[in-house]
């Protein structure tokens, strides 16, 4: 028995050692980060306030990002993309998020729409809809959310019905990023009208061309923050789509939509990290200049402790976002980590942004200083891509599966 125990321990040690993750970035990853950071300082930071104020879609910036190769990073090489890993994309999005999360959401919106096609699309579908993204400067949108179906994806009311070899889509989506400018939409529909049909068989996902007859895009919605991003509603009125445009299996749409999140949640977590870091850096810089009671305020422990807590949250969130990206890249199911990373990233972003305003004091409440925008931009991280509450549902469920 003792011998078996000793062998068992050695085997376990070997498994643990071979699964250890390296914490350092490769030279290439550092270059990618540096190049993105330079782009952010030169192109995004100077213009972010303008786009936040006016809500004007940052076409020029997105165009430059596309030229740099920042937009279609995870499209596989055979369709013209870079085939970069999720970890690489997370590094890029943290830098973009540092510049402006509204603009980075517009840029990342492409990756969101492309994910289901990359994961479940047929070769022809990928060639047609991913290929064009790398050849031309285009934007795409992911359409799942509806006015009455956000967290409860299974209560989607947009329908599709088969007519011959085609499908007809009716319904509407809401809060769709890049909606007003998209070349195509990923659309999630209920294909089985029977309310008792199981979720795994009742939904079908399609790629719908934005110029298809019957597609009507709504007005730009004016939101609290991330105002540079374009969010709208879109209606589908007897929109005819070919069977070739089904993403995944007919009836298997739910699985496709859920599978995307394992890929997109780490990246949204990455953007929230960028904001958390920006909040920390702006607060730190301000605290070195602002004086109260004879010294720069960072020398007062009350402020220094706030900065310490902000640093703490940023570092922890970063580790989780990295881990969830690495797990995905190494081919393992990362759902548990993706939810933790996304949730904690949202918490770090919101708490850091709020503390940043606090450090700035009265100036933090004012539009001439960078703090208030961060707070307005941060809130949505607790809502989109799965609310904080949904993330807890997932984490709790994944946690229990280890015990049952």
């Amino acid at each position, binding site marked *: 028995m003792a011998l078996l125990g000793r062998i068992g321990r050695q085997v376990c040690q070997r498994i643990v050692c071979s699964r250890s993750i390296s914490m350092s970035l490769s030279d290439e990853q550092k270059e990618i980060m*540096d*190049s993105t950071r330079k782009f952010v300082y030169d192109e995004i930071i100077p213009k972010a306030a303008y786009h936040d104020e006016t809500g004007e879609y940052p076409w020029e910036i997105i165009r430059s990002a596309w030229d740099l190769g920042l937009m279609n990073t995870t499209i596989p090489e055979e369709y013209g993309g870079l085939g970069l890993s999720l970890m690489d994309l997370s590094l890029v999005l943290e830098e973009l998020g540092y510049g402006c999360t509204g603009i980075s959401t517009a840029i990342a919106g492409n990756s969101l729409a492309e994910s289901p096609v990359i994961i479940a699309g047929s070769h022809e579908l990928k060639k047609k809809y991913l290929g064009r993204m790398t050849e031309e400067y285009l934007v795409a949108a992911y359409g799942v959310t509806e006015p009455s179906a956000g967290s409860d994806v299974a209560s989607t009311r947009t329908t599709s019905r088969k007519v011959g070899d085609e499908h007809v889509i009716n319904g509407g989506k809401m809060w769709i990023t890049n909606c007003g400018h998209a070349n195509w939409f990923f659309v999630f529909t209920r294909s089985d009208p029977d309310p008792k049909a199981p979720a795994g068989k009742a939904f079908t996902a399609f790629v719908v061309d934005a110029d298809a007859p019957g597609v009507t895009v709504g007005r730009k919605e004016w939101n609290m923050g991330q105002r540079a991003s374009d969010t709208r509603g879109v209606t589908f009125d007897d929109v005819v789509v070919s069977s070739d445009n089904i993403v995944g299996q007919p009836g298997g749409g739910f699985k496709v939509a859920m599978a995307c999140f394992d890929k997109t949640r780490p990246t949204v977590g990455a953007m929230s990290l960028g904001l958390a870091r920006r909040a920390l850096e702006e607060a730190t810089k301000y605290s070195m200049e602002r004086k109260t009671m004879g010294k720069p305020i960072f020398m007062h422990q009350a402020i220094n402790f706030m900065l310490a807590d902000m640093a703490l949250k940023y570092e922890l969130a970063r580790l989780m976002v990295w881990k969830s990206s690495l797990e995905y890249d190494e081919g393992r199911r990362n759902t548990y980590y993706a939810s933790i990373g996304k949730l904690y990233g949202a918490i770090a972003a919101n708490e850091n942004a709020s503390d940043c305003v606090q450090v700035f004091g009265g100036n933090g409440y004012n539009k001439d200083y960078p703090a208030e925008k961060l707070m307005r931009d941060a809130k949505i991280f607790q809502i989109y891509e799965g609310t904080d509450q949904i993330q807890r549902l997932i984490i709790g469920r994944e946690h229990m599966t280890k015990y049952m």
Partner: protein
Amino acid sequence: MSGLRVLVGCKRVIDYAVKIRVRPDHLGVVTDGVKHSMNPFDENAVEEAVRMKQKKVAKEIIVASCGPTQSQETIRTALAMGADRGIHVELAKGEEDLQPLAVAKVFAKLVEKEKPDLVILGKQAIDDDSNQTTQLLAGLLDWPQGTMASVLEHSDGVLKITREIDGGLEDISVKLPAVVSADLRLNEPRYATLPNIMKAKKKKIEKMSVADIGVDVTPRLKVQNVVDPPVREAGDKVPDVSVLIEKMKEKGHLK
């Protein structure tokens, strides 16, 4: 000329945005753990060479850097911007105090080896602000030089250069082969795009030591002392010119 061969030099320096701190021994600045990047003027040099290649004026761009192991990153950035291959003259321990004359000698050897038609360097490095290497190199090679270039035009073996000088702008023309130093307004350096960063991985970087090329890089100048500039003191506001003159006399600025 069916396409020039261009040798571009680049240097790894402390990033321009970093807050510089003097070392406790006052013999230099803190470099450990500090962010480094390509010297900004060298970016202009690399960019110019890449544009020449795009216009089919140049047919090969070789980028060279003389520095520690990490200089490789700087060379990779240049490769990602569009240079074809790199040369890394790697400095051993104890050789890190590299001064312009030594760099010029190293580059003179590289010119001997690679036989380029044109050498483009950055006007000066932002760490020592020497602005000497180009001139020294031209002297060692006995080649014409065009320093502080803000415009570069080539036709038939002759370079028309606009130089930024104290009095304004000076136009000169030099016959190739020549050494040129790039000024900030020569061009707007491109970002290394992600696809190019990936492609740069496959480009070759040749490594050699200072001993391999037979150059003595012993420093000729010794840094005695490095200090922060004096803290700016508050000034005095005076009500009128007569008080101003009085105060200036008091402080000995006026006799």
